[in-house]
């Protein structure tokens, strides 16, 4: 009744193919963006930024990156953690080598460096696919972590192998380091998440995205109709790694402030981001956000509920939390194997018909 297409006339192709064709949805999107940019920065505190929203936005960027590769182009990757490490170490080296250049530029450059590394490790995808490719990217994960542990140049020869983000400012506001305010950290991540989502959305519905999807659906058929697998697969690796590199750079410089590669960018990170896109929905930008929200916010929410409100012992709560999150993942995937994004679109489908389903 409220959510309907009736009366929402389109008079141009441009209107007809916009991202949010239904008016209510479009307004909802504008409202979310307005709240995220206009209201949240003024009310956010340290806990909300550091424990909830900043990790959510950074993981959403990483999930979008992996979704481009796995969801849209169909290339399974277990190297996300390694590529995030490339972004983090690239931004660290850039920050310390060129302290006068803005961190925002460094983050984008770190993404570009990761894109190059991603293309390099994407080369095997021209010969192998499916599980075999997953194993090749797994090798990337272990190799990159080993590399950053082994070569002291990457961590500027510090005694412990830790990298620490120095304070950097943007328009007189600290955006990295200990003095960065909650709203500054949040806004930096929000701007990057917004731009990445916007770019990903427009890439995936254009000719490049169609080529990726053609390769995903059937590579031989795609080749026959004139899609070049070399450029399609490698561009997917490049774009995906670019986003993942940005996520890694932000994770280190804005969120963690200090990192060591084995702990922050281990194989667990690769699985975490992979679970995000599987739960959120493969091949969906909204799904990337939903999956990141599910896996970042739910544990924090459960912890606060169980320990804070119910006063349970912390170890019991931590174990129960693992079980609840695990059970929810299994339940979600049984009820809706295509993830939260599909669940959301089914809900919209039902809402269109409500209250008179035929």
């Amino acid at each position, binding site marked *: 009744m409220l959510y309907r297409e009736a009366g929402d006339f389109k008079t141009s192709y441009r209107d007809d193919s916009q991202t949010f064709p239904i008016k209510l949805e479009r307004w909802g999107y504008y409202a979310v963006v307005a709240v995220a940019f206009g209201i949240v920065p003024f009310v956010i505190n340290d*806990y909300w930024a*550091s424990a909830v929203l900043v990790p959510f936005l950074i993981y959403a960027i990483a999930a979008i990156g992996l979704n481009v590769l796995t969801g849209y182009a169909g290339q399974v990757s277990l190297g996300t953690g390694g590529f995030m490490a490339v972004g983090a170490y690239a931004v660290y080296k850039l920050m310390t080598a060129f302290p006068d250049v803005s961190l925002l530029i460094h983050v984008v450059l770190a993404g570009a460096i990761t894109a190059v590394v991603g293309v390099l490790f994407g080369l095997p995808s021209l010969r192998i696919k499916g599980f075999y490719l997953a194993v090749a990217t797994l090798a990337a994960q272990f190799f990159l972590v080993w590399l950053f542990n082994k070569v002291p140049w990457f961590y500027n020869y510090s005694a412990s*192998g830790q990298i*620490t983000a120095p304070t950097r400012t943007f328009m007189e506001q600290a955006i990295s380091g200990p003095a960065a305010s909650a709203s500054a950290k949040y806004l930096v991540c929000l701007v990057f998440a917004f731009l990445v989502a916007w770019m990903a959305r427009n890439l995936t519905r254009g000719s490049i995205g169609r080529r990726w999807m053609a390769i995903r659906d059937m590579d031989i058929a795609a080749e026959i109709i004139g899609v070049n697998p070399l450029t399609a697969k490698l561009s997917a690796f490049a774009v995906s790694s670019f986003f993942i590199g940005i996520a890694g750079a932000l994770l280190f410089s804005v969120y963690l402030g200090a990192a060591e590669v*084995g702990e922050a960018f*281990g194989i667990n990170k690769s699985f975490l981001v992979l679970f995000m896109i599987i739960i959120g929905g493969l091949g969906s930008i909204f799904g990337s956000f939903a999956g990141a929200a599910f896996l970042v916010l739910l544990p924090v929410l459960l912890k606060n509920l169980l320990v804070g409100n119910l006063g349970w012992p912390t170890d019991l709560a931590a174990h129960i939390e693992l079980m609840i999150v695990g059970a929810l993942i299994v339940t979600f995937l049984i009820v809706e194997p295509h993830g939260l994004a599909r669940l959301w679109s089914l809900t919209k489908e039902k809402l269109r018909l409500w209250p008179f389903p035929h």
Partner: protein
Amino acid sequence: MKLKFPAIVAAATMLAAPAMADLVVPNMSYRTGPYAANGIPYADGFSDYFTLLNERDGGIGGQIVQVPECETAYNTEKGIECYEALKSQNPLVLNPLSTGITYQLIPKIGVDGISLYTPGYGRTSAKDGTVFEWVFNAPANYWDGASVAVKHILDQEGGDLSGKKIALVYHNSAYGKEPIRTLQELSEKHGFDLMELPVDAPGQEQKSQWLQIRREKPDYVIMYAWGVMNQVAIQEAVNVRFPMDHFIGIWWSGSENDVKPAGAGADGYKSLTFHGVGQDYPLYADMKQYVHDAGKASGAGDQMGNVLYSRGAYAALVIAEAIAKAQELAGTAEINAAQMRDGFEGLDITAERMVELGLPDFGAPIKLSCENHGGDGLGRIQQWDATAGQWNLITDFIEPDAEILDALVKEDSQAYAAEAGLTPRCN
């Protein structure tokens, strides 16, 4: 959907902060994950000591000590979440029991004005109080540990190590890499060869490292491990028949949990410690009476008297003494975080004071100042007796090699000061 989640989290966090008394000393513990076996006894000892003070003495200076617990699982991201959650409760001091989390918090606590107490772990150069204003790592640090271990080996070998080979088996993280620089310097000074064998976290797989040890036959093995890596390493050492009395772990590799899985094979394994072992101290009678028998023990209450429990209690003891000192200096029982820092810098725990506290000859005297945040770094060696199932102290407190360490500490802290743009204080 996206809007709903934050709303619920908001509601949860609003309700989450209970009313707190003035003295808040959080326990950033880990009772889950691959490091839980070591995290549980430490967390229990830490909480129980404050429970004892609250029950027996009515707190410190008449103020009850609150010990809110937060589970970090030894994970840096959860550590940040805990830090932000605890920060709102105005803690006096934090003790994260994780070198990774410590590195992350060092810049933050300087801005927020909260002390960090990292006994036996964390960033070694934090000993230099002129650079690290808010960090304290007395009574001993990783480099002290490495030096004490080498001194013990020197004693065993009659003072000459030239041509000997010492292997370092370490957790491939900030923690495990800490002693490398010191050992390299010491190997130059004493003329031994150093073999570095990293083990990736969490450390269940170290077969290849131990096969390498079997092949290259180092004279001694020094180990910096934690959590599950300890048990695996000791078992692997037994498997390759490495002589256990030539195998020396850092203090984090020397608890009952670490040696018991290897059974009789672990007999003779040595580790460092910076405090006494066992329950033959008057404090434990009080601990039993006021905490355990009263049913107020933290966790399952079955950890009393083991090595890590004692270490947790010892950390709590040093914090409690610093609180008392801070109250004395500030002239009020309701101290704030800045006064707490002054309390640490004025800390002076003498041998007589340890007797008063019911722990005679348990820890070395600690005297801190504006420049010295790390104490004297004394350590002793304990050895495992598998038949009796207990640790025995086999040496007295050994002094580390200050000549080498002071220069290294200075170098590293100056590098940090330059990187972070700090000017030295205490002038």
